[in-house]
């Protein structure tokens, strides 16, 4: 029966080793997502209830929101979902290389979304004077969208781990050296994402305040250099020396991660409508 394991003939719709044919990892992910629905349900209720009864003198969201920015990040998140779906199809066909590229793009889009959120929060705090504590609107808004943001961040981190994991050698090759490299690889990738995010935010900031390119490079040089360094390290590590043991059989891992990622996307679909759009009516 384990015949299909050897050759690339894994049926991704049916796992004969389970009673229902649904792989365990997929099932646990769907159950977790059902649970997460309740989690966001509670957060969204909190926000909407307080929007229903705003405290006197609370800020008007319409004046605060930037529809352009939010629409853009919504669009980005949708695209990341597309890339995630493609990554899953790729690995299901055993195409590790294509999957890696799709994962990287997903990470990229995810990072842009996070960047937009950081930018948005900063804008609200600094320019619109809405902080976590100075109004109920701020409290529930930051808590809800921040929790969603944490979900995205966890997703990005997971994507990074999965990407790095796709270079994992066979058992015999797993030495302390590999463990260390693995760790460095992850750190470099996380570093690249963070540094690029802040470098870009810095660029936006410079543009806003009318600074010059020179000024930008002067003040953000270390970030940009760090980013380049991280990318270089990543490229260095991305040479699969030994044969990786990541393949079609791991499709289920990528798939459950994908489910999580898409779920974060649909939560945003709800938030976009219920938190942002409704306010404009």
């Amino acid at each position: 029966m384990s015949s299909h394991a050897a050759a690339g003939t894994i049926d991704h719709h049916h796992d004969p080793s389970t009673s229902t044919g649904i792989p365990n990892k997929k099932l646990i992910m769907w159950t977790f997502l059902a649970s997460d629905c309740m989690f966001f349900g509670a957060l969204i209720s909190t926000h909407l209830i307080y929007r229903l009864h705003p405290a006197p003198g609370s800020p008007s969201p319409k004046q605060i929101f930037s529809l352009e920015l939010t629409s853009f990040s919504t669009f980005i998140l949708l695209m990341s979902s597309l890339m995630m779906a493609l990554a899953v199809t790729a690995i299901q066909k055993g195409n590790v290389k294509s999957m890696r590229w799709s994962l990287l793009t997903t990470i990229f889009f995810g990072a842009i979304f996070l960047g937009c959120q950081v930018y948005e929060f900063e804008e609200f705090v600094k320019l619109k004077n809405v902080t976590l504590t100075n109004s109920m609107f701020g409290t529930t808004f930051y808590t809800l969208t921040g929790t969603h943001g944490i979900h995205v961040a966890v997703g990005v981190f997971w994507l990074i781990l999965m990407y790095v994991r796709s270079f994992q050698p066979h058992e015999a090759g797993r030495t302390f050296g590999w463990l260390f490299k693995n760790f460095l690889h992850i750190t470099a990738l996380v570093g690249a994402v963070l540094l690029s995010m802040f470098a870009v935010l810095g660029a936006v900031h410079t543009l806003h305040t009318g600074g010059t390119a020179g000024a930008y490079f002067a003040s953000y040089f270390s970030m940009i250099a760090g980013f380049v360094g991280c990318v270089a390290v990543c490229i260095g590590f991305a040479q699969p020396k030994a044969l990786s043991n990541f393949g079609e059989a791991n499709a289920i891992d990528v798939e459950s991660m994908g489910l999580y990622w898409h779920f974060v996307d649909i939560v945003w679909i709800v938030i976009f409508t219920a938190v942002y759009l409704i306010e404009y009516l």
Partner: protein
Amino acid sequence: MSAPVSTSPDHAHGHEEESKFQIYVNVAMLLAVITGVEIVGIYLPFAKWVIVTGLVILSVVKFLYVIFYFMHLRWDKPFCTILFFIGLVLSAGTVWALLAIFSVKDSLPLQT
């Protein structure tokens, strides 16, 4: 809703899989368009309830497309759909009930 699952591994890898790329891109485009419609929609001069209903419907459509295509519930066992919908329905129901409770007169906060 969900196609019966074939037990033959070969079939699963057949032409149906090949076209998934196309499907995904189409869905993504559709989602982008709907989002655009939503954004435009809020500026239309209709009664508020019309727009709200419209927005809710459009979001639900988006929602369903993502879960049925990107999350491939459409191709999975129906059980996954049921499982997720238990959480979804309970969550939606609870949110609705909470909002309803907080909308009645007795729930008006006492601001002094």
